[in-house]
């Protein structure tokens, strides 16, 4: 058995161990990152009164520290990190907006 054959043979032997160790290390870390980043979609009171910013074909709302949006299927999604276009538009676009007040005064909106 020459040197090359020995290397291949060794690789074959340790390959399953390397694969398992790699998966064990990579996958939990990957999903832990996603799970730590939880976003909530806005309530009816928020959707009815907040102004969205239109981005990537849907209305996005800045809600509890995330940009959330409703996709075509009706599910609420969110961006893990703030897209550049939406940064600076948290108040509903450049200059913000002043919504009409119906009946009596409303409590100030949380940002």
């Amino acid at each position: 058995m020459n040197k090359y054959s020995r290397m291949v043979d060794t690789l074959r032997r340790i390959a399953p161990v390397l694969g398992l160790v790699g998966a064990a290390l990579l996958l939990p870390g990957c999903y832990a990152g996603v799970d730590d980043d939880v976003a909530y979609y806005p309530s009816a009171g928020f959707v009815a009164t907040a102004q969205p910013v239109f981005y990537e074909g849907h209305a996005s709302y800045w809600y509890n520290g995330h940009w959330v949006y409703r996709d075509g299927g009706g599910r609420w999604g969110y961006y893990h990190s703030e897209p550049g276009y939406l940064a600076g538009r948290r108040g509903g676009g450049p200059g913000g907006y002043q919504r009409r007040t119906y009946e009596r005064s409303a409590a100030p909106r949380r940002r």
Partner: protein
Amino acid sequence: MIKRQGSFGWKWASRAAFALTPALSVVSIAACGGAAASGTGEAKAPLSTQADDEAAADVSEHHRHHHHGGIAMFIAMSLDTLGVTPEQRAGVDKIEADLFSRMEPARAAEQTVLETLADGIAAGAIDAAKVNAALAQLATASAGIHDATAEALNQLHTALTPEQRGALVDKVEAHWALWQRANADEADTTPSAPAGGHLRALAKDLELTPDQIAKIKSNLGTAVKDSPVKPDPQKIEAHLQAFGAAFRAEAFDAKTLSTGGAANAQLASWGATRIALMFESVTPVLTPDQRTKLAAQVREHAEHKESPTG
């Protein structure tokens, strides 16, 4: 023989592992990298809506007292925060003004209902026959709103982009959810249950005692049970679904929606009836000072008039 079989098994096992290792790595990287590359995830239901509800308290107050416009009112109110461009603004404001104008006969009918109730509250006895006649006029006027606003809704569809149409439908559905919460007193009228939206607001405004609240709940329970007008949310939701699907589509014609008239009539009729039932239940329990205060509030609501400028 045994040795040969063992050697054969190990050989194929190691070959399979050799092939699977890169595949596993690719899957791992794709799972991680895919999430990072798309940068999106699925949002969960909010844990608490209290702060949002407080921020929308004025809208809830409106939904508690004004039902004449039905779904068309939800649409008009949604335009306020839709986020149209400056170039679209003038056109959308014109459509909104048209919507309010088409709702005017129903608004006037609702004003009569509220004024009749205010008179009765101030006097200490509500004239039920007079209120019922006014409610019937309101139901008739509201039933005609869908047909009256169909052309304005078609113009609105043309004026908006596809994503704005989707956002409008979301907002209309949100207004319906708020409306239901604001008008939920009839759900549980047992004395120990927490007061619903309207009664809770009245308890705060009029400083009702626990005994007064218990009596009002008892009166309301009987009044709701005996009322000939019953809530029928399915009728409204059927129209909301039909409108939502149609309005999101590229082609839209409000005149083809057959559910609008009945939904608007139901929303206006039930909403105004439950106001009447509430005030009929409240009035006998109040002190003269509380009645004076409530009558003034109801007159204020009666004079309220929506417009694109506030």
